């Protein structure tokens, strides 16, 4: 059996503001194996980024809290780790890339020094010349000539900046890379270049990856497994082959596929999902998708559907499917 690098069990995250409590992540279970790329798909407000920040333990202080659940990364329970322990883990075992490359780099520090910083933090034994060599190596690896290391972020284009961000994230050869919409802000041709490079590096360094995206196309091109999030829950997960090449899907997943204009298929009208995501400040009692679901049944509005917490097969959180349907009948 393959060892899971990351295992998340029943993760719940809330944001507390002056007025109300936002239920951002409501019981997420997922796992990532060594060397595997998982696509985490969902729309704005689905809880993708919150899940990622919970893994990094970088939720906003004073407002964001992990309410319950366990996050086991490389054998360590992150939810119980102290801030000091987390500092040793971040950038070393797990790193994260954020969406907007234009603002992810410190404008007043040279890119070379920003790459070097992560090495200084985690590979203290290295001499300064070794360190300098590693920086050069990382820059060449992401396709930027190393003589540009003394330049500042504003001297690079968006795509180049994202390459530098990737170099920082991979400098200490982490076991897990979390990439939060790494190419959304980039043009398609640049997105293509960056994704290909990330895939290539990931394979060379044997890194596992969680790729957060709203683009099912990106998932199809780069991921091994996929988890689809909706209103703070994972509503479907499985290997990409199982999710993409099938007609048995969660109604929301079907809706997502119906919403994408596909250049390979000629269809005049799209089949979007009507309505909006439920208000995360007052989540519904039953299934989160109930209001918008074209196949809703009476029980869906009352009881949230169950989800197999173990196993890595294709799973759908819906009263209409598999395990859920059977258990639903039984009760």
């Amino acid at each position: 059996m393959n060892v899971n690098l990351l295992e998340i069990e029943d993760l719940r995250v809330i944001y507390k503001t002056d007025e109300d409590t936002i239920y951002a992540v409501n019981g997420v279970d997922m796992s990532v194996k060594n060397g595997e790329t998982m696509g985490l798909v969902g729309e704005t407000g689905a809880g993708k980024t919150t899940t990622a920040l919970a893994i990094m333990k970088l939720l906003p202080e004073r407002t964001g809290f992990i309410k319950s659940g366990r996050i086991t990364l490389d054998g360590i329970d992150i939810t119980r780790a102290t801030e000091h322990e987390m500092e040793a883990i971040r950038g070393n075992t797990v790193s994260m890339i954020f969406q907007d490359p234009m603002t992810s780099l410190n404008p007043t520090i040279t890119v070379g020094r920003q790459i070097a910083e992560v090495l200084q933090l985690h590979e203290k034994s290295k001499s300064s010349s070794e360190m300098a060599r590693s920086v050069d190596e990382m820059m060449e690896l992401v396709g930027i000539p190393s003589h540009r290391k003394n330049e500042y972020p504003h001297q690079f284009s968006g795509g180049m900046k994202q390459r530098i961000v990737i170099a920082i994230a991979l400098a200490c050869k982490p076991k897990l890379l979390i990439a939060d919409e790494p190419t959304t802000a980039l043009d398609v041709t640049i997105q293509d270049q960056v994704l290909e490079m990330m895939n290539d590096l990931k394979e060379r360094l044997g890194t596992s990856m969680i790729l957060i995206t709203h683009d099912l196309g990106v998932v199809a091109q780069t991921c091994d497994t996929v988890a689809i999030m909706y209103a703070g829950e994972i509503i479907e997960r499985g290997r990409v082959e199982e999710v993409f090449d099938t007609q048995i899907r969660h109604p929301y997943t079907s809706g997502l596929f119906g919403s994408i204009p596909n250049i390979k298929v000629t269809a005049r009208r799209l089949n979007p999902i009507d309505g909006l995501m439920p208000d995360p400040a007052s989540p519904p009692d039953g299934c989160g998708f109930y209001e918008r679901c074209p196949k809703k049944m009476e029980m869906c509005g009352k009881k949230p559907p169950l989800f197999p917490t173990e196993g890595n097969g294709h799973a759908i959180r819906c009263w209409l499917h598999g395990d859920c349907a059977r258990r639903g009948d039984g009760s």
Partner: protein
Amino acid sequence: MSALLETKGLRKYFDTPMGTLHAVDGVDLAIDGGRTLGVVGESGCGKSTLGRTILRLTEPTDGQVLYAGSDIARFSAQRMNAIRRDLQLIFQDPLSSLNPRMTVSEIIAEPLRVFKITGGRDEMDDRVAHLMKTVGLADRFANSYPHELDGGRRQRIGIARALASSPKFIVCDEPVSALDVSIQAQILNLLMDLQEEHAISYMFITHNLSVVKHISQEIMVMYLGQCIEKASSEELFANPLHPYTRALLAAIPVPSLEARKKRKGTIKGEVSNPIDPKPGCRFAPRCSLASSECAGEDIILRESGAGHLVACVKNGTSS
């Protein structure tokens, strides 16, 4: 048949500290009544400037914009304002394009007031209510402010405003790229329905090729201020001729697994900017087929098959 809207040699240059930026550099296009022209390109290709120049939100440097036969680029400000009733615009960012101090109904009523379309207060209210219904906005939002609504509804307000004066031509500048996928599809469907009902022509500006295929009959691909390929939607996707168009198509991540293994060679490098460009093909520095023929003199659009125009000297040499 003469087109509803046509541009001839349209140019828009900007002076920058670094030199003259050729944002739109000699664009010819024609859009028939009730049809959609998709304008595709990456950031900095001049597609938004093209839309704004056609609507004279920035003054063209040179060239003609023919609307129903007359050159509106030469119109006086007064005449231009009168004709704006027919020519409307939908923005990319729905929030920043809506006045934060006006309610939804006030925003939609604004064109009615400006063009003095409706008579009394009641008629205006009815018309606003009707427009809100048309774009799928519930009545209860009439007195809300834009920041209180979600992105999809905000974009519906923008559409209702553009629709209020019963225009014949609408420039849609990336109207769905700020929206989530499921909302995106709702808005695209709405735009298509409106076109069918009211026979409006669209110029649909976007960076997203899959969206543009869906909505337009004709597509124009822009690179650094110039049109480099133009064809009907089916033709362009079935038989892309310009190396840049091919690269663009190849770069789109397709949500199916068949395309997965066959990774095509992507284009190298990044878009520069059209500041004081040298004559010759502007894509040449990134093009794998580039040779000495590509530099020296400007490459013009040439017909290659029925209605398929392409600006490439190599056209047909490789597939």
